[in-house]
């Protein structure tokens, strides 16, 4: 006859085995780094030469921007903005299919729903399962943009690590300190870590690390840390990646879907339909040079401490009734939407100032440009 305590051995052993596996697994996975050493400039060049790839992958994006959980109303006219804000909170997973420069499909996998962006040349379909709508955007021909990433992506899109990394790489200037960190493994591929750190202390951003695939130079992940918190404020990285062209079929909107036709404006300088979001999209303005500033926009400061000001009637009306205002707190001279990476100041006279800078800088800029 077995002693009674022997019967309890499995009950003790099973959790112990599970705990061991869970603790040991990450160490086993990250034990390979045999990339030849490279200088920061070489890694930047490697990443720059990675255009025009075809791949199939899964991307996970995590935002801890400190945005409060918003009670987002489901009114249709705000749907695009609501989605944009939703994408800046919590964790999202998306599948990305890229076939050459102008065919792409992105599937943002929501719980019990999905948002799809399908691009085929100048046709872009945005399908949202939740409300069964398909929006058909037609892009104007833009030959002068050759080689430059088109920022006017359809609303509600998750940036792939490559898109986002490209924006940062384009924006490297003397105010940025570029170093190469330890090699890491992203989606099972060994990668260089390129660390971009602002030399100024007048910004909320502590550093941006970009994982650059050792073999192809494709940016596999971007991680942004803030001065105000220890965990990363925003990160997007591949969890799976296969460097093979997806089998792409033409997207047909399903029967019964509500279909809207829209034409994306060219780079005419009009205020975008959707206010610039407080997050990664903001950084697309980092490299804005004065020649391309839309009317009513002002740029002050340089590099990481750039402040964008929007004046005139559009600025106030664009945010009117926006759920973002729920997140605003009252400060001297206006209201502040504060996140880990970006501060947005809405002044009482209807102007908007945004930048990765402390509130005091925004107040100074608003005071000096107001008179």
């Amino acid at each position: 006859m077995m002693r009674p305590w022997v019967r309890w051995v499995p009950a003790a052993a099973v959790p112990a085995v599970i705990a061991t596996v869970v603790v040991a697994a990450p160490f086993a996975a990250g034990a390979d780094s045999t990339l030849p050493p490279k200088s920061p400039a070489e890694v930047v060049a490697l990443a720059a030469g990675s255009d025009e790839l075809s791949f199939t992958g899964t991307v996970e994006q995590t935002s801890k921007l400190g945005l409060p959980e918003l009670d987002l109303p489901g009114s249709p006219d705000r749907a695009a903005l609501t989605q944009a804000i939703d994408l800046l909170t919590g964790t999202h997973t998306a599948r990305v299919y890229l076939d050459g420069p102008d065919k792409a499909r992105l599937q943002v996998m929501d719980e019990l729903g999905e948002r799809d962006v399908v691009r085929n040349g100048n046709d872009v379909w945005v399908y949202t399962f939740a409300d069964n709508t398909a929006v058909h955007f037609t892009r104007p021909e833009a030959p002068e943009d050759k080689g430059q990433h088109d920022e006017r992506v359809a609303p509600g899109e998750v940036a792939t690590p490559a898109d986002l990394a490209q924006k940062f790489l384009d924006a490297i200037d003397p105010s940025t300190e570029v170093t190469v960190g330890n090699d890491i493994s992203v989606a099972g591929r060994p990668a260089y870590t390129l660390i971009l750190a602002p030399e100024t202390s007048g910004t909320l951003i502590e550093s941006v690390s970009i994982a650059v695939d050792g073999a192809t130079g494709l940016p596999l992940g971007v991680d942004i840390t803030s001065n105000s918190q220890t965990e990363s404020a925003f990160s997007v990285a591949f969890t799976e990646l296969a460097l093979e062209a997806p089998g792409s079929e033409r997207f047909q909107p399903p029967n019964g879907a509500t279909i809207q036709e829209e034409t994306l404006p060219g780079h005419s300088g009009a205020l975008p339909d959707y206010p610039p979001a407080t997050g990664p999209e903001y950084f697309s303005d980092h490299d804005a040079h004065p020649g391309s500033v839309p009317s009513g926009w002002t740029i002050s400061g340089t590099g990481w401490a750039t402040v964008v000001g929007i004046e005139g009637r559009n600025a106030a009306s664009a945010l009117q009734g926006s759920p973002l205002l729920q997140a605003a707190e009252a400060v001297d001279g206006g209201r502040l939407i504060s996140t880990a990476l970006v501060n947005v100041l809405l002044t009482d006279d209807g102007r908007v100032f945004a930048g990765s800078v402390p509130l005091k800088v925004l107040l100074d800029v608003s005071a000096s440009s107001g008179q």
Partner: protein
Amino acid sequence: MSLVPVDGSAGELRASSGWALMASELSVLFRRRRTWAMLLALAAVPVLIAVAVRLSPSEVPPGRGPPFLDRVTQNGLFVAVTALVVSVPLFLPLTIGVVAGDTISGEAGLGTLRYLLVAPAGRVRLLIVKYVGTAAFCLAATLSVVTSGLVIGAALFPVGPVTLLSGDTIEAGESVVRSFLVAGYIMVSLLGLSAIGLFISTLTDVPVGAMAATIVLSVVSQVLNALPQLEWLHPWLFSHYWLGFADLLRQPVSWDSFGDNALLQAGYLAVFGSLAYGRFLTRDILS
């Protein structure tokens, strides 16, 4: 069962008595009026949904009510999926809790546990048989929702090619296959809860207590899963992937959550299975 054949080896006898025990357990389970009542109640969920949508004078606006509800009028095959979304959080765990909580404590409460153990089946075998019976009920429960949903949907609404979450369209035949895949996913999802119920059932002689405790745990797990402050805990909750069956309705099918879910449920089965083993084999059976 009481006669030991002289020429039969003990191993053969144990094996055959195991299958006999399994057959008798399944036949007892599925001949109980309570089991049929629960399966019928589950089958009534899609019927209720379909009839309510059919009789409603106005269209369901998109984004209102449970997901997929607004698609029902366009395609009856969505009734099954809608009913699953509605059943997963409460109705299914409720019925699983009743069956799993009753496994051992029910026999103890009736005073039949002693007699079951007098037969040369052994306690381990009885635990396994009881667990397999619960798993069979999980399968029957999800199938009853899906089948009834497909039938009532096809009867009341037009049936045609189905739009997946991705906006791609598949033929009606393939969508039926996907519906049964979803049923399989949900059956797997419930295996962890079944193991928890089995363990709780070994703790007590009062079946109602074990049932209630199992059901309460399933609710607690879902509440915890909804709290953003506990995000680190979420991947460890047995209900975490319950609604992940939607990944089977994408194009192409995403198997990630299916694999994660199966692994998680296997972990729960291992932990609570071994706890039930420890408890059931060391306790004194008095009733």
